[in-house]
């Protein structure tokens, strides 16, 4: 399969959205582009599985073009199981995000263009095997994030947009410094940004440790590494619904994927040196995020802080450095992406009807809007790790992988992280109970309508993903397992 298709579709979609005269055509173009991309990613999944079944190893469907030959910057594309999983997640979230924004009234053309551009950045990031190209696409995705919050946001939107942009730009500086430092440690002085060649370099251990710190912390900020997580609650809460979905469902995953691909895979000595620190920080993020979520009264802040907690599982899985845990980290990225996008979509649906996000001002909403209430239960139950839904599969895999490390430190970290599930259950059930169950709190809410067709469609796309992962986790585990193992095998920490 030609991977440039995955970049060509969003580029053409972007052009169509911008060039078509009316807002109605623009949103249909955005939806059509997102749907075609979803179809393309499903074809990619089937082709990838077929190629692996035929004995294909490592990165498949590779293609290479020169981009800036003087500095050996190339346009090297290729995918492994982890990237295929992330691409699938992105396509699902993009389709749902476009659908949820169907009635966007403020500058709709630009809005859909921003969504498409953010998607393009993510697809480019996930298919790039060249560090520079990867960095380029990472930055490409920051611009629409800023604009989505600053132009279409609510509340303290300028503050949140600035904070997000500055913190992510600061993180990008760390990543760029790390990449440049890596270039200067090229063994024969021959720069290359091609990860398949860098991985064969023999970089001295202490250099690896230094560079790992820069790259991992940089990408860590994107995925809410404690204590660099404070852009998450403000950014997610101020963003418009689709913006929150894209931030939590796609943007934070760029960080997790980058940590794994650019830091752990390329710099194994750094991963071994920093592993325990990552475990420590992620356990703090998991528990602390969960407890802070308990105290939130705004639905969006609840989901945003719970994202800090859930993304902690991604970093925990990576820090444990075992096959099951790293595979679990990838599963958690997919799971969290789907269920948190669904949660933000539902919160958006509730907000446009009730004009409030305060839990205390709602109650009994299940009567006027049963469909939306069921969706909220589904997202919440997946969030607290109910078996049969996606969260259980991912968190279980991280716990099993964490337990494989038989030191007291790693095992107590695993136990502490597992205990957060109880706290998650408390805040999820309290929030859903207070807003959806019981008698109607505000009689004006009795006349509210249930989900419209586009909202139902958006929710069904994400629900299908959550159920496909929760009820039949085998296919996804088979997809990411071998490549998670390939990363960990370089470290020598996992039992075979």
């Amino acid at each position, binding site marked *: 399969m030609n991977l440039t298709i995955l970049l060509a579709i969003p580029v053409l979609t972007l052009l169509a959205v911008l060039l078509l005269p009316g807002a109605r055509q623009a949103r249909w173009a955005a939806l059509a582009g997102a749907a075609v991309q979803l179809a393309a990613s499903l074809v990619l999944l089937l082709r990838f599985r077929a190629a692996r079944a035929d004995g294909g190893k490592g990165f498949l469907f590779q293609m290479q073009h020169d981009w800036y030959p003087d500095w050996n910057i190339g346009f090297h594309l290729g995918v492994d199981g982890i990237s295929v999983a992330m691409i699938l997640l992105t396509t699902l979230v993009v389709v749902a995000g476009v659908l949820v924004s169907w009635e966007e009234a403020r500058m709709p053309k630009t809005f859909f263009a921003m969504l498409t551009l953010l998607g393009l950045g993510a697809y480019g990031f996930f298919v790039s095997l060249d560090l520079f190209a990867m960095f380029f696409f990472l930055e490409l995705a920051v611009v629409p994030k800023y604009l989505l919050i600053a132009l279409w946001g609510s509340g303290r939107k300028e503050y949140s947009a*600035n*904070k997000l942009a*500055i*913190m992510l730009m600061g993180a990008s500086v760390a990543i760029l410094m790390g990449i440049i430092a890596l270039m200067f440690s090229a063994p024969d002085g021959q720069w290359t940004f091609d990860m398949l060649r860098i991985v064969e370099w023999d970089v001295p251990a202490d250099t690896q440790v230094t560079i790992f710190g820069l790259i991992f912390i940089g990408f860590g900020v994107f995925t809410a590494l404690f*204590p660099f*997580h*404070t852009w998450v609650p403000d950014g997610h809460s101020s963003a418009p619904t689709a913006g929150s979905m894209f931030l939590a469902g796609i943007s934070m995953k760029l960080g997790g994927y980058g940590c794994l691909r650019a830091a752990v895979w390329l710099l194994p000595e750094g991963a071994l040196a920093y592993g325990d620190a990552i475990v420590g920080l992620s356990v703090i993020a998991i528990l*602390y995020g969960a*407890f*802070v979520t*308990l*105290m*939130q009264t705004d639905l969006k802040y609840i989901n945003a802080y719970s994202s800090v907690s859930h993304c902690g599982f991604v970093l925990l899985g990576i820090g444990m450095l075992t096959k099951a845990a790293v595979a679990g980290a990838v599963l958690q990225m997919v799971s969290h992406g789907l269920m948190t996008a669904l949660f933000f979509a539902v919160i958006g649906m509730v907000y446009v009807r009730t004009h409030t996000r305060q839990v205390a001002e709602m109650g009994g909403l299940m009567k006027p809007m049963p469909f939306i209430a069921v969706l909220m239960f589904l997202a919440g139950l997946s969030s607290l790790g109910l078996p049969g839904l996606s969260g259980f599969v991912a968190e279980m895999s991280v716990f099993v992988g964490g337990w494989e490390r038989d030191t007291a430190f790693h095992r107590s970290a695993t136990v502490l992280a597992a205990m957060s599930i109880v*706290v998650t259950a*408390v805040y999820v059930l309290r929030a859903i109970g207070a807003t959806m169950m019981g008698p109607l709190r505000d009689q004006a809410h009795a006349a509210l309508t249930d989900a419209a067709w586009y909202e139902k469609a958006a929710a069904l796309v994400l629900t299908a993903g959550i159920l496909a992962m929760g009820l039949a986790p085998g296919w996804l585990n088979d997809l990411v397992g071998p490549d998670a193992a390939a990363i960990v095998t370089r470290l020598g920490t996992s039992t075979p």
Partner: protein
Amino acid sequence: MRDKFYFDELYLFVTKEVIFRFIGAPAAWIDRKVVNGLVDLTGNTALKVSDAVKGLQSGRVQQYALFFLGGLIVLVLLMTYLF
């Protein structure tokens, strides 16, 4: 049995009086005031510093000439006393 062995009361006491008050509330306070406070402090310090130094970019050539002259004197003094 009428009071369900006070399980509901026990549960409410543990969650509301212990977990919420002694763990949740301090954690939320720390996050907003300390962790986020440091982020805001960094941003506000940058603003204050730029506010303090923006006067240097006055556009007045005489002032630039004064800075140039002052710098020259400092350099000359440094050169004379250090080397």
